[in-house]
């Protein structure tokens, strides 16, 4: 494999966001040898993307919270962990009580790292919002636009509309306004059960997030039209987005747009955890599956821990103590001493950061009707499977999403179900009246990222695998006949 990566490590952390960096710092302080892998070029994760390299002026425009990430990034850089950037992890393979193998790929070469403990800190992905027209060029996630801004200084050009639900829509609108871009509108599609949040309001009012959030929303509302109470969305256009249409109080309206930025909150990235064998549970408030862990992030699989948004959406502030706690649990498992005071402190931090979430989670919950599309709306983008086909297959009596996948190939394309798993469950739930908790979700398997056959073929293999794959036959000893890359 590459010269950069050793093939063993005491503790492997995957993800250089707040959770992963906090975990690395904690584990290093206890003397553990830490390798942190991330596929992006620089530490920061989603919220602090590129904060280490962003010019001061861009940091200023992205706000105080973004700039604050620079401190953690530099603490992390100084902590002595081995940070391998540009490395994508395609599998975490626990072997009962033995070592855990982490499958990695870097610049087109695959390899395997053996370790005794792994912390998955792979964060969240934006929840796909499968509305009509969402596959057109010119439609993106609001998070994608934010990443473009953070990492490349890209600003929307032309008419830009933000639509959906979640605090990120307001945050992004505010950041765009500061950068001199005025979105044409923000169209909000709140959950019909928004009132369920109100009992949690008093708690939220006592958090700093309240003042900050209220100020932000007020600023955005002063500068751009905010249309709230939309019930349905669709994007029209021939070969690219031309307009966002929304239904409000039963009638349709249209806003011309060159760029439509959709958002419906974020959900844990499940692929690595599920492929490793971690069971999931349904979170009915956040309407998503999350991996089963204990409060510190330990899974049932020895040596495997999950921290940050990947364990359950809690935001960056909660991801920090979550990373520390997972590191403490991993250290204990590795037989290293954990300072009880540090453990108590991390727990306190976690609870402090968690205050107010009960309100935010409910207030910004997505309306289920938007998540379970109808008719020809594409649910699986890779295989172009429309919602109607999934509904039809559900009516055949399929027991769950995986049989629908067999029928229709939804989830079998290159994204491996990341973009449609939630929709398949939501559509089945809507069609059959069954609870998503009972239906489950598409199964994810190793490798969670594509590998070229050449890369795969060069992984080392033992005798047992040889017998299983080849029986009595043997492969020739000659070098593999690999074709020239450019041919």
């Amino acid at each position, binding site marked *: 494999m590459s010269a950069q990566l050793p093939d063993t490590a005491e503790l492997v952390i995957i993800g250089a966001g707040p959770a992963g960096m906090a975990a690395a710092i904690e584990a290093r302080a206890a003397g553990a040898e830490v390798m942190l892998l991330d596929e992006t070029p620089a530490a920061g994760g989603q919220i602090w993307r590129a904060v280490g390299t962003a010019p001061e002026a*861009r940091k200023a425009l992205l706000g105080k919270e973004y700039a604050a990430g620079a401190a953690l990034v530099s603490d992390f850089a100084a902590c002595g962990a081995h940070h391998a950037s540009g490395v994508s992890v395609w599998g975490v393979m626990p072997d009962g009580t033995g070592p855990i193998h982490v499958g990695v790929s870097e610049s087109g070469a695959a390899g395997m790292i053996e370790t005794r403990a792994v912390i998955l800190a792979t964060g969240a992905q934006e929840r796909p919002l499968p509305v009509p027209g969402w596959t057109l060029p010119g439609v993106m*996630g609001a998070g994608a636009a934010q*990443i473009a801004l953070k*990492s490349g200084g*890209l600003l929307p050009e032309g008419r830009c509309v933000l639509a959906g639900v979640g605090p990120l829509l307001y945050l992004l609108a505010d950041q765009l306004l500061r950068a001199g871009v005025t979105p044409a509108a923000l169209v909000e599609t709140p959950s019909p059960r928004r009132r369920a949040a109100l009992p949690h309001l008093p708690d939220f009012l006592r958090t700093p997030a309240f003042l900050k959030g209220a100020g932000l929303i007020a600023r955005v509302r002063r500068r751009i039209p905010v249309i709230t109470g939309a019930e349905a969305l669709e994007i029209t256009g021939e070969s690219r987005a031309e307009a966002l249409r929304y239904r409000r109080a039963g009638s349709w309206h249209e806003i011309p747009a060159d760029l439509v930025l959709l958002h419906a909150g974020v959900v844990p*990235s499940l692929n690595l955890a599920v492929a490793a064998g971690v069971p999931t549970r349904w979170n009915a408030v956040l309407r998503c599956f999350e991996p089963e862990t204990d409060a510190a992030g330990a899974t049932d699989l020895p040596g495997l821990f999950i921290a940050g948004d990947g364990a359950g959406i809690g935001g960056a502030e909660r991801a920090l103590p979550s990373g520390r706690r997972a590191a403490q649990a991993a250290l204990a498992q590795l037989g290293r001493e954990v300072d009880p005071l540090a453990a108590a402190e991390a727990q306190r931090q976690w609870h402090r950061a968690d205050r107010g979430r009960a309100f935010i989670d409910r207030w910004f919950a997505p309306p289920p009707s938007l998540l379970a599309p109808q008719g020809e709306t594409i649910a699986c983008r890779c295989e172009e499977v429309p919602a109607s086909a999934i509904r039809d297959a559900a009516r055949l009596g399929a027991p769950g999403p995986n049989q629908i996948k067999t029928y229709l190939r939804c989830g079998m*394309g290159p994204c491996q179900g*990341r973009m449609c798993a939630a929709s398949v469950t939501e559509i089945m739930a809507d069609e059959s009246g069954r609870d998503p908790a009972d239906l489950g979700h598409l199964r994810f398997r190793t490798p969670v990222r*594509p590998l070229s056959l050449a890369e795969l073929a060069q992984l080392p293999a033992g005798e047992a695998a040889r017998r299983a794959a080849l029986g009595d036959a043997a492969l020739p000893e000659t070098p593999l006949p690999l074709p020239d890359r450019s041919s």
Partner: protein
Amino acid sequence: MFRRDPIPPGEAVEILLDGQPISARRGDSVAGALLAGGVTRFRDSVVSGAPRAPYCLMGTCFECLMTIDGVANRQACLVTVEPGMRITRQSGAPSLLPEAET
């Protein structure tokens, strides 16, 4: 769809999209550089041939698949630009096996 913010840019790097030069900045992802360069259509889908472009910019959606320096189906949002990088759009599935004789 996108333009760059006015903040002083990093070093310029030239890349080629289907043979046409595009100016990128060191550190850009390929997808970011193409978006900044005014590209809207990144590929045509494998099933219906409909035009597609990046949706997530974080490695999740696989809408940004392109052939980069001869390697098909790479996620343009996860690859950092290099001077002279050759990028080609894919129309349908990449052609990696001999075309059938009909």
